[in-house]
């Protein structure tokens, strides 16, 4: 659905996006993560044919960026960083206007469908100027979907939403994925990205890493098992370090954090060793690294790393 090959954008002296190559498939939620000013918005603008690339090529929904822009815009939906709605017009009138520009066949039907889906039908006649931030965001999402795009670009879709509305939007995004659309999601909410995205790219002017969240966690941090003990003794850590399967051991209060290549195979031996050393094991669990850990490590890493 989205293919980029060495895509780049330069504004005068500033290289905003450099040599971006990626593929996003139909039915995939793709997280595009990066700090402010990393070039995420510029990338989305290039892929939605709002601005042209200065190097490389890109295809979105089968249309080449820069050559088939009109057709491309018919096939993509975009939720911009700011909802950008006409405050003096009603919710219904806002959507009708965009539906007509997108040449939607059944304007009234589509407007009603998305207003109902996003819980705004009862407020459809009210001027948008009086809407809360959450309602405005939901209306902007409805606007991005009116023409049933194959590819959807969502920039911070749940920002400014209360937990209930954010959940509704997340469920909505999941539904879009099941309908076979490609979702390109820019977000700073890494927990949300972890839950929603099939793959994520960490980006800062150029691609730092690209893989599934689980694979990135493994690649960057390996796997760790935590042993909660009733009491800690220095000899426990030494006994574990002597085992060949153990990569690292950290002592945190009454916990032992053990880095392992393959916990499923190594754990029985580790437990035996600790019990033989006199440890009282209260609890054993895998230390879950978050996507935030992955993101921060990549962004702070000089030069980053690129994996696909």
């Amino acid at each position, binding site marked *: 659905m989205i293919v980029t090959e060495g895509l780049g954008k330069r504004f005068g002296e500033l290289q905003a996006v450099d040599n971006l190559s990626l593929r996003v498939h139909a039915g995939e939620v793709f997280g595009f993560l990066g700090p402010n000013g990393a070039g995420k918005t510029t990338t989305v603008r290039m892929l939605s044919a709002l601005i042209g690339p200065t190097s490389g090529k890109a295809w979105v929904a089968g249309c080449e960026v820069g050559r088939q822009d009109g057709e491309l815009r018919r096939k993509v939906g975009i939720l911009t960083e700011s909802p950008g709605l006409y405050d*003096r017009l009603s919710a219904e009138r806002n959507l009708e206007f965009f539906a007509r520009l997108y040449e939607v066949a059944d304007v009234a039907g589509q407007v009603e469908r998305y207003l109902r889906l996003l819980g705004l039908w009862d407020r459809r006649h009210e001027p948008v100027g009086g809407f809360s931030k959450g309602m405005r965001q939901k209306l902007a999402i409805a606007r991005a979907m009116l023409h049933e795009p194959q590819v959807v670009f969502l920039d911070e879709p749940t920002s400014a939403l209360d937990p209930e509305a954010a959940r509704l939007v997340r469920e909505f995004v999941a539904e879009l994925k099941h309908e076979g659309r490609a979702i390109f999601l820019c977000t700073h909410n890494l927990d949300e990205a972890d839950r929603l995205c099939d793959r994520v790219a960490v980006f800062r002017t150029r691609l730092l890493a690209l893989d599934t969240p689980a694979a990135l966690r493994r690649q960057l941090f390996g796997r760790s098992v935590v042993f909660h003990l009733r009491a800690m003794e220095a000899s426990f850590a030494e006994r574990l370090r002597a085992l060949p399967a153990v990569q690292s051991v950290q002592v945190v209060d009454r916990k032992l954090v053990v880095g392992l290549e393959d916990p499923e195979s190594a754990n029985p031996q580790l437990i035996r060793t600790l019990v033989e050393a006199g440890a009282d094991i209260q609890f054993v669990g895998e230390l879950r690294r978050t996507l935030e850990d992955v993101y921060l490590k990549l962004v702070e890493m000089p030069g980053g790393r690129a994996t696909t």
Partner: protein
Amino acid sequence: MHKIGVIIRKEWSEVFKNRLVLGTVGFMPLLLTAMPLVLLRVMGGEGGLGEVGTADMPASFARLCEGLSGAECAQYFFVTEFLLLYMLMPLMIPVTIAAYSIVGEKSTRTLEPLLATPVTTIELLAGKGLAAVLPAIGATWLSFAVFAIGVRLLGVGPGLVAKLGDPMWLLAIFIVGPLLAVASVSFAVMISSRVNEPRAAEQLAGLVVLPLLALFFGQVSGLILLNSRLVLWMAVGLLVLDSGLLAFAVQLFQRESILTRWK
């Protein structure tokens, strides 16, 4: 064409909900139509000026009074002063509408979603431009019609009534007026690319009336005589100016320019 119509309807339904815009669009034609009629009425209609003769008029103007009585010539001189003020309408109304339509869209950040639709740059600019130009032309023409009817009802001389249909007036109202409106919108687009507040845009774009005011004072002081030839030259000059301004406005109104260079 369909999308241009969609944009025009949206612009009108939004912009005319703004009281300031509505006030400008409604008040200016009312004022500029009522003022000359009231003054003509005060002057007393046909024969109200008594013994005024063409010799009392500036010599250059008296030549235009062929076939008119002295009183009619005086009324015609007075009414001709207002012709230039009539031209304020096609200049000021589009500036006000375009300022709120384009800069307003910029300040509420609605331009990016709009530019993401399959609408072409020309359709977008034409829609926004026509939404500003058409009310101005409509208001000018309607005001002129009301003025012409008012002049008849006030019972001024038949010679003066006939003069309102001469080439100078027709050229001014039906050709120069629309050309001024196009120039005004193009100027407003240029201003919009550098300003973030609709009122600031309106005030800056309002500078477009300066040449017209210079012409007005030139005529009042007798330095310039408004006649068919001058109005024709104005039309030709505006045609050339509009072509240049429009080309520049189209250049400025490209998606990439708007998103990356408009500040």
